[in-house]
Structures are given as structure tokens and as C-alpha cells.
């Protein structure tokens, strides 16, 4: 029973990280229907920029954190401006392939600058985050993931519900042409959503890096694991992303614990295929109705 509970807690904590990583992904999909294959590289970028700012430039943790988030935001903005904007209205395959190309470019760049070795981030989380009660122990990284996850969930919830920009984003996601004709600045919405997504990705990258150390290959692999998570939650639901992440995390932990560790990495994809066959629009996604 202890083993079960520990697996459950581990799974939930890792799941929160997956959910957090998936949030930025859903953000982009929600406003511009772009599947971002470069998401893992954005995660890695955030972690590496943070590492450099902290250990090379020697900024204090707080400032390094803020500077990283700003840098990620600007980068997301620039990616949208230079690469995605010319493709507005082009067929899906070009957009998907562009993000695949972008992923290769970013990965090459990251490896060129920081190399492929595993690096560790400084452990800066305060001690009160280490929760221990009897047999149950939640390490500070997991606690941070849960806190950040909940924080962003609430922030995004409020943002999409009440702020003007959030409502614009929802309108663009719902019907781009109608939004345009009503005077919504669609291009600004796209730029903003890429900026925010990159920011969230950078943030998740830092937390993922705290847990396992950062290496370009590992973090880009997490970028691919986002797919089962978002499909499970529904591609356009941010809270769905978190719940999908939790389910995938727990599933991975149990497969790794009870069945075999090697099956662990492939189980999310098996679930993905089955789910796509049974319920293509995910647990919380919008059911699209098509007309000829």
C-alpha cells in the first residue's frame, strides 16, 4: 500500500509537470490552431537561459528568473513574427512542418551553444516547500510544480474569462474570420499567444530542469510527451491539459512500478491511440461539428 501511495504521489507530481509543459502548447493551439512541435525546445531554451544567467552572468536567482521569462516572451514573439505569420491561412501540413523545422533549428542552436551534456540547475527552492508527513514525502520540486501549475491555471482562467485580450483570443480560436470582421487584431493575438506560450514553456523548463537536470535531448523528448497529454485533455482546454498531464503521469508511474520500466515511455502513446479511436476530441475538448 505504501508503494502504491508513493507511486501515486510521484505520478501526480510528474503529471503536474507534464500539465504545466502542456499549458503553453494548448495556449498556442487555442488561439491559432498550430501544433507546436518545437515546444520541447522552448522548454529547454528557458532552462538553459536561466542556467546561463545564473551561473555565467551571476544574476541573483530572482532577477535571473524574471530575465529568463522576459527573454522567453520576446523569443516567442519573434518566432511568431518571422516564421509563423507568413503562414497564416496556409494548409496545415506546412504549419506543422514549419514547427518541425524550427525544432531542428532550435535544437541545433542549443546543442551548439550549451552542448549535449546533462547540466544541473542550482537548487534554490526554499526549505518550507519540502513536505514530509509520516510515510508521505513531497520533494520541494514537486511542490513548486504544483504551486506554479495551480497559479498559472488560475491566472489563465481569469485571463481568458475577464481580460479583453483573453476574450479576443477565444474569439480568434473560435472563428478567425468572424473575429477579423469584428475588428479583433488577430495578428496581435497570435503574437501575444506565442509570447505567453514561450514564457510558460520557459517556466516549466526551469522546473523540469530542477527535478532531473537539464539536457537538450531529455527536454525535447518531454516536448513530444505533451501530445498524449493534450489529446487526453482535449486540445483546447487548459485545465484539460493539467488533468491529462496528471492522468499520464500516474499511468507512467504505475506502469513503471508494476509492469516494466521500459514500457513506461510507450504507454502514453498506446493510450493516445485508443483514446483517439474512442473519443477523438479528448476528455474536455470541444466537439467540432462540420458542414460541407
Amino acid at each position, binding site marked *: 500500500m505504501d508503494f502504491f501511495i508513493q507511486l501515486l504521489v510521484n505520478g501526480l507530481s510528474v503529471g503536474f509537470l507534464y500539465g504545466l509543459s502542456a499549458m503553453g502548447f494548448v495556449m498556442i493551439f487555442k488561439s491559432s490552431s498550430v501544433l507546436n512541435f518545437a515546444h520541447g525546445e522552448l522548454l529547454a531554451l528557458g532552462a538553459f537561459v536561466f542556467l546561463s544567467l545564473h551561473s555565467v552572468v551571476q544574476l541573483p536567482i530572482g532577477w535571473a528568473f524574471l530575465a529568463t521569462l522576459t527573454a522567453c516572451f520576446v523569443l516567442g514573439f519573434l518566432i511568431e513574427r518571422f516564421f509563423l505569420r507568413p503562414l497564416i491561412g496556409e494548409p496545415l501540413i*506546412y504549419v506543422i512542418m514549419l514547427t*518541425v*523545422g524550427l*525544432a531542428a533549428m532550435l*535544437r541545433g*542552436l542549443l*546543442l551548439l551553444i550549451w552542448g549535449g551534456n546533462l547540466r544541473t540547475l542550482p537548487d534554490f527552492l526554499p526549505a518550507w516547500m519540502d513536505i514530509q508527513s509520516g510515510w508521505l514525502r513531497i520533494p520541494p520540486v514537486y511542490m513548486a510544480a504544483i504551486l506554479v501549475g495551480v497559479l498559472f491555471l488560475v491566472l489563465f482562467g481569469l485571463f481568458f474569462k475577464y481580460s479583453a485580450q483573453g476574450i479576443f483570443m477565444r474569439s480568434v480560436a473560435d472563428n478567425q474570420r468572424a473575429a477579423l470582421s469584428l475588428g479583433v487584431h488577430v495578428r496581435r493575438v497570435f503574437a501575444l499567444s506565442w509570447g505567453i506560450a514561450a514564457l510558460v514553456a520557459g517556466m516549466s523548463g526551469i522546473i523540469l530542469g530542477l527535478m532531473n537536470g537539464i539536457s537538450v535531448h531529455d527536454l525535447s523528448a518531454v516536448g513530444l510527451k505533451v*501530445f498524449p497529454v493534450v489529446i487526453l485533455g482535449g486540445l483546447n482546454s487548459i485545465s484539460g491539459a493539467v488533468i491529462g498531464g496528471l492522468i499520464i503521469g500516474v499511468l507512467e508511474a504505475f506502469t513503471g512500478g508494476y509492469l516494466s520500466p521500459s514500457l513506461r515511455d510507450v504507454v502514453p502513446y498506446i493510450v493516445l491511440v485508443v483514446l483517439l*479511436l474512442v473519443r*477523438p476530441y479528448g476528455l474536455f475538448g470541444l466537439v467540432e461539428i462540420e458542414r460541407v
Partner: protein
Amino acid sequence: MRKLRLHPCGNYKESYTDELAIFGSDYGRLWSLAGLAALFCAVPFISPPYLLYVVNMIGIYAIAAIGLNILVGYTGMISLGHGAFFGVGAYAAAVMSATFNVPFLLSVPAAGLITAGVGMIFGIPSGRLKGLYLTIATLAGQFIIEYVLVHWEGVTRGTEGITVPAPTLFGISLQGDIRFFYVIFTVLTLMIWMAVNLIRTRYGRAFIAIRDNDRAAEGMGIPIFSYKILSFGISSFYAGLAGALWAYYMVSVTSEPFNLSLSVEYIAMVIIGGLGSIAGSIYGAVFITALNESLRWLTDLMMNFGFITRSGLNMAPLREFAFGLAIVLFILFEPRGLAELWRIIRSSFRLWPFSY
């Protein structure tokens, strides 16, 4: 001998047979025959061994790329699992020849058929899904197949890999680049011929109808599910065939090459070459292989410069960067690929000096 016809300046087609003709003028037919003759008679003998190896690889990749183009370019379904299907073909051929001593002539088509079966299974989600969701389903297929290739140790011998015995065809041993060149390019020619003609049949037209508007196609009485599965089957058949040839050519088969980046390379070939163009798939295969080889050559060259080695820079990631950049630039500036570029060049010659 009848008079050779040149391309007229304008559209003067009078019958459906004209419209469906593969070669617009007799010059096209002559040129392709001359090209084939040059390819088969000259290339293997004048090219140095390494170049011949590269040419052979281009031939193998081109077969698989044509298959992917039938699925992506003609049927409009984006697959990120083509590299895995290629791997299934390679393993099928390797297992058949190493374990069961199946002869070359039988094992290659059989590997194609087995891969077609696997492809059809992974194509089943296309019954309900399309667009993004189908792409993600094929991505899952890629990972599942990769897992099975590594962990089904009874058949695939896991990470250890399989060594394929040297193939013989009609009693002639097929070792060496030159002999294999003939095998690969005979198969490639056959497969091009099949693909070009497939597109002109009712099946090909149904694929194109599904790509252009699947609901309208269904309304016109095309059973889209079975046609989509068929498209998956044909596409994987090509991938399996190419994989089988690859296995015999490479001698030893391990699961590493068949990862997601191979699938991405195939998609890149199809996009850079030109979606919905058989010739484009070949241009794409040539382009990507040439790009890979020249980047490898360039990074090797740069490794030799003392100051770069001393500065501790690792040049290998530069290849990945340049590969991504090539894809991005093509999509931004010529999304219809090399086939379209070639068409523009050709027609500017044809219409000169009155380019309108």
C-alpha cells in the same frame, strides 16, 4: 516514324486521353528514356565508390518518399510514422532472410506486403480522425513500432540487431555497390511507373478527391474509409520495399535508424520536393540526401581547422540547424517545392521570349 511534337504554347487538349497523358510531348518521353539509359549505362561506372553509395541511398529513399507522397500529397493525410514503416520493412526482410532463408526475390516483395499490413492497421484511426488528430495518431504509431522493434526480442533480437546474409538473384551474388545499384534502380523505375499510373486510375482520382474535400468525396459515393486505408497500405508498401532493400544493402539491421527524425526527413523530402508530385518526391530525396552529405562533409572539413577544434566547438549540431533551416526556408519561400521551381524554370524557357 511519326513527327515529334513540341509543347504548344497554350492548352490545346481535345480529348480526355490527351489530358491524362503522362508526357505532354514526345520530347518528354525521349528525354526520360535518354535519362534512364544514361542512368543505367553510365552512372555506375563513372562514379567513385562513395558517390555510388550516395546514389544508391538516394534510390532507396526515393522509393519510400514516393510512397509517402501518395499518402500525404495525394490523399492529404500527414503521417509522422513513415520512418517506422521503413523499419518494419527492413526488419521483415532481415528476419525472413536470416531466420527462414527466404530468397531475395521473394523476401523483398513479402516485406513490402507485411509493411502494407502494418500500415493498414495504423491507418485505422483515419476512419474517424483527420488533420491534426491523425498526425498525432501516426506519431503514436511511430513510437509504438519503435518500441516493438526494440523489445520483441524473440524476433528482432533487440538492440543486438540482425545480420542479413548476402543476397543472390538468379544465382548471381548481389554484393557490391554496382550490382546493388541495378537492383535498386530497377525497383525504383518500376515503382515510379506504378505510382504515376496509379494516380491516373479510379483509385488515384479517389485519393485526390479525398484530399481536396473528403466530405464532398463521400457525398459523391467514394467509400472514404476504405480508400484511406488503401492509401495507407500502398504508402507503407513502398516504405517496406525500400526498407527491405536498405536491409540487404546495409547488411546489418538495428532499430536506431528508424526513429522520429527519419520520419521527419521523409516528410521534409516530400515537402521540399513538392507535395502531390511523383517527380517531386525524387527531387526531394536527392535534395535531402545531398544536403545531409554536404553538411557532413562541411562539418568534417571544419573539424580539421585547428582553431575550431581548439575552441572546443562541436560542429555536429550545425547539421541539425542547417537541416531545420532548409525546411523552414522552403516552406516560407517555395512551399510547393522543387517540382514547382522546376516547372517555373521549364516554362520560362518554353515561353521565351513572350513570357505571358
